[in-house]
């Protein structure tokens, strides 16, 4: 875990310096556009976290192994963290560029609703502890991920303002080549940070459950 954390911090410093000092300033948006180097990596990491919650939840219900539940739980906490960072960095970017902190755009609405779903996941765990809470949370982890396309579809009914993807497209990146390296470095940094925190939380939960077991045994 420690090497992951060190590597992530180092890459984050490189990515941020590159994004702030080397990368070109966008013509229309100016300096606020540099928030992209945080916003985009963070949102991708958030969706990865949601995917890990889904996989952990399915495997927990299927295999009944508490390890999968610990993985899903740790990832759900990180999902809430990274979704929060997405919403905050997006609002800070939206204010100077769109003239508003918030708008009922499809992507924004979807992200906000996901925040509520995964906060609900954590609340269920807090209010229904033990095996029952774990199973309830797993069902929410599955339902939450399956709900994403429907949330997005419904939010499109509400109209859209957010730009379309510019990097991960079938036709190749639309983003200028000079903006790509700091974005990818920053992306790698956040993914490594996610991995490090995930390992840390899973280990903590494992220690906790061992402690409880040994106390019950004594």
């Amino acid at each position: 875990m420690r090497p992951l954390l060190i590597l992530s911090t180092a890459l984050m410093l490189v990515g941020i310096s590159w994004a702030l000092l080397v990368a070109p300033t966008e013509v229309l948006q100016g300096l606020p556009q540099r928030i992209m180097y945080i916003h985009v990596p963070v949102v991708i990491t958030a969706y990865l976290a949601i995917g890990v919650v889904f996989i952990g939840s399915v495997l927990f219900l299927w295999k009944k192994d508490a390890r999968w539940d610990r993985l899903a739980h740790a990832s759900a906490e990180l999902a809430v963290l990274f979704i929060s960072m997405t919403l905050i960095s997006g609002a800070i970017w939206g204010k100077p560029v769109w003239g508003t902190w918030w708008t009922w755009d499809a992507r924004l609405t979807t992200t906000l609703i996901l925040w509520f779903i995964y906060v609900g996941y954590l609340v269920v765990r807090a209010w229904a502890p033990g095996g029952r809470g774990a199973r309830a949370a797993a069902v929410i982890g599955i339902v939450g991920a399956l709900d994403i396309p429907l949330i997005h579809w419904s939010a499109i009914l509400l109209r859209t303002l957010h730009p379309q993807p510019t990097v991960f497209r079938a036709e190749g990146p639309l983003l200028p080549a000079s903006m790509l390296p700091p974005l990818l470095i920053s992306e790698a940094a956040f993914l490594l940070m996610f991995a490090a925190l995930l390992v840390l939380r899973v280990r903590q939960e494992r220690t906790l459950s061992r402690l409880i077991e040994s106390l019950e045994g004594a």
Partner: protein
Amino acid sequence: MRSVWLLATKDLRLEWRTREIVTTMGLLAFLLVIVLGAARSDPESAPGAMWVTYAFAATLGFARTFALERDHLTALRLAPVDRGSVFLAKAMANWLMLVVVQIVSLPLFGALFTEAVWTRLPLLALPIALGGIGLSAVGTLFGGLIVQARLREALLPLLMLPVTLPLLIAAVSATSAILDGMPLSAVGAQLQLLGAFDILFLTVSWLLFDFVLEE
């Protein structure tokens, strides 16, 4: 299928004899229509008010239906039917109770918000029915999930409202277009979304209900 029907009629008979849940849901719906209507009662506010009312009535009622079962969950677990049937029976009973509340509150929307509720009734029945089915599917799944949790009544809306938001958005949008006098073809996308939501959540809940009732 027979066992689904038997279990559902058991719940409905219980409800018919006490009338606890439908009365509470109905009164809350009545109160919400009045509160929302006092705040704004122009025709444009009707669809939003309608679905806020239905969603809150549903979260209140659906938290109760499993509570009835709380002391008898073992009996339900031991019943010689598969858990998917238990889900379908509960969801059906919940939906029928919600439908009663929906029908009873329609005259209020007609009186307070817009006359169009009456002239557009046949078309309006589509989003009301499809939306009610989805609310019941999700409400039954989560209601069963948290039956033994602390603060169950507070937890259900926290879980149910975000997950059903796509359904509520589509239902509000369809209701609003229909009340504005648009033809059926104008709400095709919304009705498709409602149908997709219903199918997805009925199937997923039916599959996952095994784990919900597990000891």
